[in-house]
């Protein structure tokens, strides 16, 4: 089975794959302006830039705003996002939540919990 470029056999995708897939799905949800990284992720990003400045190496951008917890066939996803102005918090938030929930069920997870936080308007 192919899921947005990832080949899925009997194995479930790992944490990084799930995070990437979830981030792609959320970004493609109509009305979503962007993912909102946590304070810790933002600090890491700045620290990464600073260390890249000193070492000459830059870290790739992470899928900030997506937090994944996997336990066997159970997935718990937390997503922080910002919506576009004139959109509805509940419409966009629910659509993002449903999209990710379906994505993970299709990927083979039995129990899926998706928490979405709409934190602002932008763009």
């Amino acid at each position, binding site marked *: 089975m192919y899921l947005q470029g990832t080949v899925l056999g009997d194995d479930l995708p790992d944490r990084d794959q799930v995070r990437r897939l979830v981030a792609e799905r959320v970004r493609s949800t109509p009305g979503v302006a962007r993912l*909102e990284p946590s*304070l810790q992720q933002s600090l890491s990003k*700045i620290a990464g*830039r600073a260390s890249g*400045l000193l070492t000459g190496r830059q870290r790739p951008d992470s899928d900030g705003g997506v937090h994944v917890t996997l336990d066997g066939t159970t997935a718990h996803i937390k997503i922080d996002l910002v919506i576009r102005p004139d959109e509805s918090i*509940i419409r966009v*938030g629910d659509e993002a939540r449903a999209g990710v929930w379906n994505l993970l069920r299709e990927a083979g997870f039995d129990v899926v919990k998706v928490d979405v*936080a709409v*934190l602002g308007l932008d763009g």
Partner: protein
Amino acid sequence: MAVERLACGRDPDDVWEGLDRGPDEHERECPTCRAARESMIKVRDATLTMRERNDAPELAPPVNLASSIKSLARVQVRRDRTFSVVRDDAGELTTSEWAVVQTVRRALDPIEEIRVQRVRISQTSSGGLALTILIIISFGQRVPKVADEVRAVAEHELRRQLRQAVERVDVRVGDIREW
């Protein structure tokens, strides 16, 4: 405070200040001053080298450092107060006071008779939403009529945004001005 002097009795500050000129007669003859000058020259040269390196382009802060710090502050503000909108077996949808306040402000923007000063949203003890809107009103307007319009627009926007009825909308007029 007593100044600590070299063994020969000279003030070390005087030796330091004289580094740029050649040694005077005493410093040429005095072994203590000669040794002090040599040490001080090493310190001065090391300091100058470090200062020059500090100006090196590769050590300059990134151009987007200021915007990064601002974005950190925004991240914190957006997460400051959140509340639940939907909760079911599949998870939870929450939003922040910041997001809701932004939507209400945008909805109130077209009302020309007012300027919005502050919007606060809170949850009542029964779990409903309460909104407090502080406005400045244009001189010559009927306050009750404008307040009713503000209340209606805010209620409609909150219902559109959250599909929840608002329990209370308080409109407070903070000032009347001419524009």
